[in-house]
């Protein structure tokens, strides 16, 4: 392992991300924050939704923002760089095992996902106004869950980035990300699905469910949520599976 090279690769991604800061922020945060405004402000203030919905919603919004940020930070550049122009070739020729380039991409994606997640908390809190009761009494639990969510989102980006062609980016959003977000228990707690027994079980394959429920457990424990240990176990297992798959696919893409 060659730390100098690894750091230089990370610095390159950081440099590019800073250059595209505003579009990246808009891309990752605008949609979740608009949703926050409509459901967390308009619907609750008008009385269509109870005020307590705000507490339920915020962790879900945070999970969605992190997943969007992580997936897009890794997948979109990878798809472009692996196209016929092979922009990534220069970095594949850097003196480091090529698996570490994939790891570097994942670390860069995690950082962006964490930033997105941490920006959403104050932003959503400001938008929704009074009535949001966040509990920061379990910082360690919050950190572990947030890191696992960030890891899952950027590993998901790695797998998608190595599986999807440039012409399928739109399809990736409508076939993978949209259902994942809708059935990710971000806008409602998992327990709300009890009246739909099949769906209740089926959504358990969706990693976003654990992300939303885990962040709920860490930030708003007063709201019904999944057992945190179960969440951490599931996210860790998903992360390991995605890591294996992502590295394998990256190698297939990188070496002919």
């Amino acid at each position, binding site marked *: 392992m060659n730390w100098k090279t690894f750091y230089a690769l990370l610095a390159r991604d950081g440099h590019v991300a800073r250059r595209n800061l505003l579009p990246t922020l808009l891309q990752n945060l605008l949609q979740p924050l608009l949703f926050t405004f409509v459901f967390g402000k308009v619907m609750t203030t008008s009385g269509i939704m109870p005020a307590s919905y705000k507490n339920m919603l915020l962790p879900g919004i945070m999970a969605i923002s992190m997943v969007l940020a992580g997936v897009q930070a890794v997948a979109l550049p990878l798809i472009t760089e692996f196209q*016929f122009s*092979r922009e990534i*070739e*220069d970095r594949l*020729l850097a*003196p480091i*095992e090529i698996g570490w380039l994939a790891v570097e991409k994942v670390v860069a994606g995690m950082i962006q996902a964490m930033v997105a997640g941490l920006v959403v908390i104050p932003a959503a809190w400001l938008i929704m106004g009074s009535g949001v009761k966040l509990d920061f009494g379990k910082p360690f639990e919050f950190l572990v869950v947030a890191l696992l969510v960030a890891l899952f989102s950027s590993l998901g980006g790695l797998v998608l980035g190595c599986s999807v062609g440039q012409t*399928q980016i739109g399809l990736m959003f409508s076939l993978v990300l949209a259902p994942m977000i809708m059935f990710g228990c971000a806008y409602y707690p998992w327990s709300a699905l009890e009246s739909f027994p099949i769906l209740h079980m089926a959504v358990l394959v969706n990693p976003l469910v654990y992300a939303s429920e885990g962040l709920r457990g860490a930030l708003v424990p007063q709201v019904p949520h999944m057992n945190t240990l179960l969440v951490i176990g599931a996210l860790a297992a998903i992360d390991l599976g995605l890591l294996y798959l992502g590295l*394998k696919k990256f190698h297939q893409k990188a070496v*002919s």
Partner: protein
Amino acid sequence: MGIGIRIENLRKVYDTPPPMAGGGTGFSFAAVRPGGKEKAPRKFDLVALDGVSLEIGAGEVFGLLGPNGAGKSTTIGVLTTRTQPTSGRAFIGEFDVWRQQVEAKRLIGVVPQRPNLDFALTAREILTFHGAYFGQGTRDRERRADELLERFKLTDRATHMVRTFSGGMMQRLSIARAMMHDPEVLFLDEPSAGLDPQTRLLLWEIIRNYNRLGKTIVITTHYMDEADALCNRLAIIDHGRIIAQGTPAELKAAIPGGYLLRLRFGRVTEELLADLQKLPGVTQVRSVDPASVDVYADRGGPLMGPIVNTAQAAGFELRDVHIAEPSLETLFLHHTGRSLRD
């Protein structure tokens, strides 16, 4: 010091189309679907390299010459860790390219066939980040980047994003990038494809100067004059096999007679071949197909009179003539029966 290269019995069989030939688009979860239905019988077999062995000396300019699809780029791909060989081994210096990739990568610089510059960066950043990947310190890499930008006449565009660059500028920047970490071995895959004659001469000068520092240079080309002008030694490659290697002079001397006259008649008979063989200066006569004859001789034009007379006397109609002077082109024709541009 200088670093040599050794290739032992290299084979590469693609079972999916290689990346250059497209593909790589679309969802491809197929590889991870375990078991399931029987795999679609998509049998794809492309033998790109078929037992290639080579030895390239330290400090040499070595050329791989051959038509498109001959296996030149695949050879470069294997030597630069970008292609996994099906069997056989390749060494850069003492390092096995496939097993000791990191050590091998430190020694090499690569100029790809098509520029693959990092479009998210400016020209100068492409060089400085490349230096950083190779562990150069900040001041060191900035100084080197400025030097290279100056030498490749890119200083005034240093802070521009490269997507606005012309083809020639991208090519120059690719070469500058490959030299940024001062590699012992420089690979250039078709470096002068698409360059104007002036830039091409500049490129040759740069390659020669770099070689003077004791660096090994491997270049692929399908231009005969380029191979002739630049290379100390050459290997001619076709259909994944090396069909001849040596210095350009040795290779040219190996052609029987030196000149090749390709004659086309209405038809060809054994008697005609025998008559042509008797002409002065003719070393070898080969029938290529029922209507064509290749004549190898020590002279070209002066032989035309006797050939026309012989053909007329025997009652054959000469329809077409092509005279190839002693060159690598002739050599390629001699070995493969095809022109390099076929």
